[in-house]
């Protein structure tokens, strides 16, 4: 009893305690661990601990040939697998100065955009779930299934495609591809209204996201927050616009910029982006030129000695691939600048002073894919 009486009197109001969010936690969407310092319900600071699924992809790349590396990039941001493949393919093609058939660039651009829509659909599901609306999850997955069906029909896989190869595509698209994509766009234009009815317009959702987790433009640039999260803060960072690749320079689409940079703005960015992606696809789908689906490549691909960098706009932001080659068939050093890694670094900064529930909403709006952080 004596010990209890003699306890030093602490100011309970100011006392902080820590909780581990993750590695197994419903709202971290994977094995990310956040050590959160709390005062009551208010987040004082947080430290991300990553690396639970660090597979050493960069180290593995040093032993693999370039066509093999394509298969590893699928496993980083598995939700924008095509776009990751695209980055490596373009890097190799540029280094070897291979001219890719026009048909390939068209197909790649369309499939990239389909992949982006599928990724944003899954983000929408999980964001809804983070906010406590479980029904969103099934609506989003229902529509994502349509895109996966199109993918499956053309090249047989649904998540880890490895469809692009250096110089072209693994195989030609299915004859029904164009018809099915057009049917999907018609279908999804109707269904995206459901998304707005169910979540966007909901008063609780708006109360919980507006003015929460504000990221200024300066901070977004300084922290390297790219993709829809960065554009919500007004950071014009769309690689498709500023460093065009594929046939993005031949299509018309808007780079939508936000002003407030709060969670709601980040949410709206992705909703708009789905519409913009559909616009891009509509412009291209009828104009796929006839021709070969693959350029002639050497059997063993060796990049000339030197260093190469390729940037693409993945679904979550800017993906950079940096290769130092010594002229061998595998790279000397390969680095992936993954968008999620930089987006994660800002989480501590913008979630200070928020409630636990806000932290979950902010995390949902930054849209992590943990394998992309850990690589």
């Amino acid at each position: 009893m004596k010990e209890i009486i003699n306890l030093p009197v602490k100011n309970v109001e100011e006392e902080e305690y820590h909780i581990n969010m993750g590695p197994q936690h419903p709202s971290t969407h994977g094995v990310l661990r956040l050590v959160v310092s709390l005062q009551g319900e208010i987040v004082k600071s947080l430290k991300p601990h990553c690396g639970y699924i660090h597979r050493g992809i960069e180290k593995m790349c040093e032993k693999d040939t370039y066509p093999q590396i394509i298969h590893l990039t699928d496993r980083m941001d598995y939700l924008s697998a095509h776009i990751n493949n695209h980055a490596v393919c373009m890097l190799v093609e540029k280094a070897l100065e291979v001219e890719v058939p026009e048909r390939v660039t068209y197909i790649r651009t369309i499939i990239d955009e389909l992949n982006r829509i599928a990724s944003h659909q899954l983000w929408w599901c999980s964001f809804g779930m983070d906010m406590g609306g479980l029904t969103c999850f099934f609506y989003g997955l229902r529509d994502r299934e349509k895109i996966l069906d199109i993918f499956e029909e053309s090249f047989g896989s649904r998540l880890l495609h490895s469809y692009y190869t250096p110089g072209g595509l693994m195989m030609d698209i299915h004859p029904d591809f164009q018809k099915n994509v057009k049917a999907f766009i018609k279908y999804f234009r109707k269904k995206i209204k459901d998304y707005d009815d169910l979540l966007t317009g909901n008063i609780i959702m708006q109360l919980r996201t507006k003015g929460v987790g504000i990221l200024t433009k300066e901070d977004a640039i300084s922290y390297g927050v790219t993709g829809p999260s960065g554009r919500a803060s007004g950071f014009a960072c769309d690689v498709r616009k500023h460093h065009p690749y594929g046939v993005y320079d031949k299509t018309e689409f808007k780079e939508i910029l936000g002003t407030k940079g709060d969670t709601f703005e980040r949410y709206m960015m992705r909703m708009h982006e789905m519409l913009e992606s559909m616009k891009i696809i509509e412009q291209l789908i009828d104009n796929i030129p006839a021709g070969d689906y693959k350029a002639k490549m050497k059997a063993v691909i060796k990049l000339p000695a030197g260093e190469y960098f390729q940037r693409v706009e993945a679904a979550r932001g800017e993906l950079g691939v940096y290769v130092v080659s010594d002229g061998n068939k595998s790279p000397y050093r390969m680095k992936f600048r993954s968008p999620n890694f930089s987006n994660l670094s800002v989480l501590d900064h913008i979630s200070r002073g928020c409630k636990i529930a806000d932290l979950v909403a902010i995390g949902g709006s930054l849209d992590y894919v943990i394998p992309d952080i850990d690589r």
Partner: protein
Amino acid sequence: MNFSIYDFTSFNQWIDKFLFDNLPAFWAIVVEMTIIGLVVLLFYALVGLFLVYAERKVCAFMQNRVGPNRVGPYGFFQTIADLFKLLMKELVYIKNADRLLFNIAPFIVIIASFMAIAAIPFAKGLHAIDFDIGILYVIAVSSLGVVGILLAGWSSNNKYSLIGAMRSGAQIVSYELSVGLSLITIIILAGTMQFSAIVEGQANGWFIFKGHIPAFIAFIVFLISSTAETNRGPFDLAEAESELTAGFHTEYSGIKFAFFFLAEYMNMFIVASIAATVFWGGWMPFHVGGWAGFNHIMDFIPPLVWYFGKTFFIIWIMMWIKWTFPRLRIDQLLTLEWKYLLPINLVNILIMAFIVLMGWHF
């Protein structure tokens, strides 16, 4: 002896008389209590299982899914299979948990809801006990459950559980006010707190129609605040699986978890029953004053059908809300209660008192 599905009074009296004729008075009461206890227990379990099944089906309907469809016709026995699964599961003991409180907590929660069910009239003459302060009793007993939730959160030795329990405490203490005050609005109109008298008072029109605007406001407030009081979405902050994994019952497993689960559904049933009884006439058929023929036809539908129809309709509304809305944040939850519902309620009571004084109700 004539038994009727419209009036259970004679049936009850017959059993009572039979027992007292054949047994000493003390044993007659013991047997009577045992029968009532068993019947309520059985009813409790059946309704609980059915509600879990119903929730799964409703939620599947909202989410473009099929829901359980393997065990039995339309998956009807799925919950029974789940019950067996939960019964056979290992009870995990938590290191450094307060063993006594940890074990007691689920029982407190389930006993609170068990006690509340005793006062609810299911049909004429079909209730375990008819207090003259029935509403007060139900409010008092059903708010005991929060003690169990707080104990569960405290004793689990888990910060998520503790945060969940503290949220739940703040939430239930706040929303208890609105539940009570919205019922008081109707008590003013009815002039009694006895459930049977309240139901009888609605013989020529349900209170939600008789009390027109203030009664309707009171019903909406009751629906919101009772959803909050039962910890259901969008007010399920105590569980909030995306924030607190499972809130106060994170560390519970097996049948103890099932107790919390069952208690949540039974609390929903209880508040729906109260809403049906107080606002929508309970087992009283739909009557329109003056339309004797219409009222007579309505009387042919048994009171149990009326009662369960109304209750399950309200439960369906609550499920609909849960599967549509995202979750509130704790400060928004408390703002809604203290800044909106409470003032609305207080003004509403004044209006109702005025209306009753002036005799402006139907």
